[in-house]
């Protein structure tokens, strides 16, 4: 046995030597980013791509924007198990706030809200999925933090300002503040900022607790509902959303305490500024549209507006003027298409989380800056 191990080690060492010698001529492989990204795509596109790169003029087909347009589909990383944000409805459609932002991006880039392939990712999977470029964008209730910003990808503007909260079953646990939970067992999902905040918060308060950590979102809430934990912690929006799926939602109360800032936003892979700009401005355009009063019902009328701000956003060129070029590399009327297909921020919010829905979440911080919220889009000019 030991001899076979020795020979395996020998081969590995040999391989190391071979690669070490072959390190310098590496540049030959460095011009294949498109090809290696393609390895993770469906075979249909990967057969086309090499021809494309081998073609005499490969200059513009470099970035992810071109890649997505070539593929004709946006690969959007979502949660998939979070009602209100992204969740399969009765007809098998991915619906929710995050899913709608995926559709908005697809409409802006491809002109078709249905040209999205949703990838359901667990909290642990989402970082690597971005780093390897498996998804074009991650819109998966992901909190913006400095280490994620540097390691995972570029965070776009926050689409949902959230805060961490704690939920308890009021029939079993009598608690109104975090201090009342001293000694409790708390269910939390791993690979989340909430897992870290929980530890920070409780050690700051000097309270003992036992974490019960699950890798997936469903077991986390199932174990809590079964009574394995005294409390469960996550973003307030997520607690509200998951509570609606409980057997007796009224028994579960969310404590007032806000344990952290949780700005949730879209994330684009590192190192592609052009694509990152597109992601950013799609979000800004939904906010700007709400501020300007443009929604999916009146977007056609608004196109006839004399207001130059609205004209620029909707890509309308007044007679005798130079067409406005945003520089994003999208069609001039992308925002108009997007608003008519998906709607402005308020429509997306109300459709998925607003008073008409089970969740009935207050807009709160997620109101326009003009209404005391934090949504503020830079000028589109």
């Amino acid at each position, binding site marked *: *046995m030991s001899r076979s191990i020795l020979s395996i080690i020998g*081969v*590995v060492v*040999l*391989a*190391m030597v*071979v*690669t070490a010698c*072959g390190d310098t001529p*590496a540049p030959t*492989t*460095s011009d294949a*980013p498109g090809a*290696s990204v393609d390895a993770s795509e469906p075979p249909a596109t990967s057969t086309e791509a090499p021809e494309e790169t081998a073609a005499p003029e490969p200059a513009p087909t470099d970035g992810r924007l071109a890649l997505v347009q070539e593929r004709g589909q946006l690969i959007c990383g979502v949660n998939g198990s979070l009602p209100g944000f992204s969740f399969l409805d009765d007809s098998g459609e991915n619906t929710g706030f995050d899913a709608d932002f995926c559709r908005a991006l697809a409409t802006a880039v491809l002109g078709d809200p249905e040209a999205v392939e949703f990838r359901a990712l667990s*909290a*642990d999977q989402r*970082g*690597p999925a971005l*780093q*390897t*470029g498996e998804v074009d964008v991650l819109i998966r209730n992901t909190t913006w933090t400095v*280490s*994620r910003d*540097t*390691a*995972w990808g570029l965070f776009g503007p926050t689409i949902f300002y959230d805060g961490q909260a704690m939920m308890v079953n009021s029939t*079993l*646990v009598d608690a109104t503040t975090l201090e009342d*939970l*001293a*000694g*409790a*067992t708390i269910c939390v999902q*791993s*690979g989340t900022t909430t*897992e*870290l905040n*929980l*530890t*920070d918060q409780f*050690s700051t308060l000097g309270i003992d607790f*036992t*974490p*019960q*950590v*699950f*890798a*997936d979102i469903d*077991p986390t809430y*199932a*174990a809590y509902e*079964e*009574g*394995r934990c*005294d409390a469960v912690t996550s973003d307030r929006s997520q607690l509200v959303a998951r509570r609606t799926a409980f057997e007796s939602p009224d028994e579960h109360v969310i404590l007032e305490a806000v344990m952290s800032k949780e700005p949730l936003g879209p994330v684009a892979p*590192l*190192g592609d500024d052009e694509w990152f700009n597109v992601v950013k401005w799609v979000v800004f355009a939904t906010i700007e549209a709400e501020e300007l009063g443009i929604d999916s019902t009146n977007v056609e009328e608004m196109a006839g507006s004399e207001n130059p701000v609205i004209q620029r956003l909707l890509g309308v060129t007044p007679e005798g003027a130079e067409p406005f070029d945003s520089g994003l590399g999208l069609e001039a009327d992308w925002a108009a298409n997007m608003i008519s297909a998906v709607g402005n921020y308020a429509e997306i919010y109300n459709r998925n989380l607003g008073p008409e829905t089970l969740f009935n979440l207050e807009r709160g911080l997620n109101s326009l800056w003009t209404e005391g919220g934090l949504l503020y889009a830079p000028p589109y000019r």
Partner: protein
Amino acid sequence: MTPEPQSVRAATVPPWRDVRVLNIVGQVVVIIVVGLVIAFMVRNFESAMSERGLGFGFNFLGRSAGFDISESPISYSSTDTYGKAFLVGLLNTLFVSFVGIILATILGVAVGVARLSPNWLVRRIASGYVEVIRNTPLLVQLFIIYFAVFLQLPSVGQSLTLPGSIFLNQRGLFLPAPQLNESFPVWLPFVVAGVVALIAARMAATRLEEAGRPSYRLRSAGLAALLLIPAIGWIAVGGSPVGADAPVPERFNFVGGLALSPEFSALLAGLVLYTAAFIGEVVRGGIQAVRRGQVEAARALGLSEGQALRLVVFPQALRIIVPPLTSQYLNLAKNSSLAIAIGYPDLFKIGQTMANQTGQPVPVIIMVMSTYLAISLVTSLLMNLYNRRIQVLER
């Protein structure tokens, strides 16, 4: 045909038809091909890493982990390093694997023997168990055991209370933990004296037996000494040297004592039930491979059914059982990584969290893989040593 022309012909075989040369060339070619494949993969990995801007390093191991772990055999807090968190995961994996291997072996042997039982009912139950467990995925079994069995136990308020301060509820099994009191060091010499007396009595008894004289009195005297001397010491010391730290119900849960979490229990139960079904088949095969004549000879000597199994069949079956048993042990250790599904903080689970928090999946995965590899290699090394020992005894 004279031998001379033959040898001349042999000497003139060209190298491309010489078997010895061809053998060496073949092996060299294989080594080169394998080396090139590995080199290609390493190169591909390196270029992919640099292209995506993923750093590669193990510096993060010294940084503070920042996450808590629900259960740990050593003291751990969120301010400890990633390296320590990884160690906690490793210890949890080793713990569940070790206990799992012991229990799976016991249950597996029982099942294997039961499969061959002359009793119809026992035989049918054993084979039903084997077929059901062996033909369903372990992950599914774990979910059922965890969510449908352990989490359905009574809540903390309505805990099942067993005699001796043992409590069972959906938060786990709570046992009193042994606790050493102040008088323990004084009592310890009595225990040592008892053990020494037992060993001395046994050695003397063996000597008597070799001389062909009865020794049972000496043997029982040794046992009596083992029990009596510490008992006298217990009374002499005054105040019990070993106490029990019983679990006490508090606001949310029991505190103190030994606690076995439902995650650990469910994982252990799943691994044991699953692996024991395979071990049962290995044992059955091993027993059936012992020739029928051996059993008949044992009967003819007047050995009972049990004695024949223990003294004649089993020692011979072992040499057939051990190699496949080794691979079942390896499977159990590797399957323990399914702990991630039910929230037991094992090596893989902690590794996933580390990969996520540090943004360094590749180094972490390499660490996790090489750790599992090391565990498996050590296990099979030990089992091979054991195998060699029983093989030598055989002849």
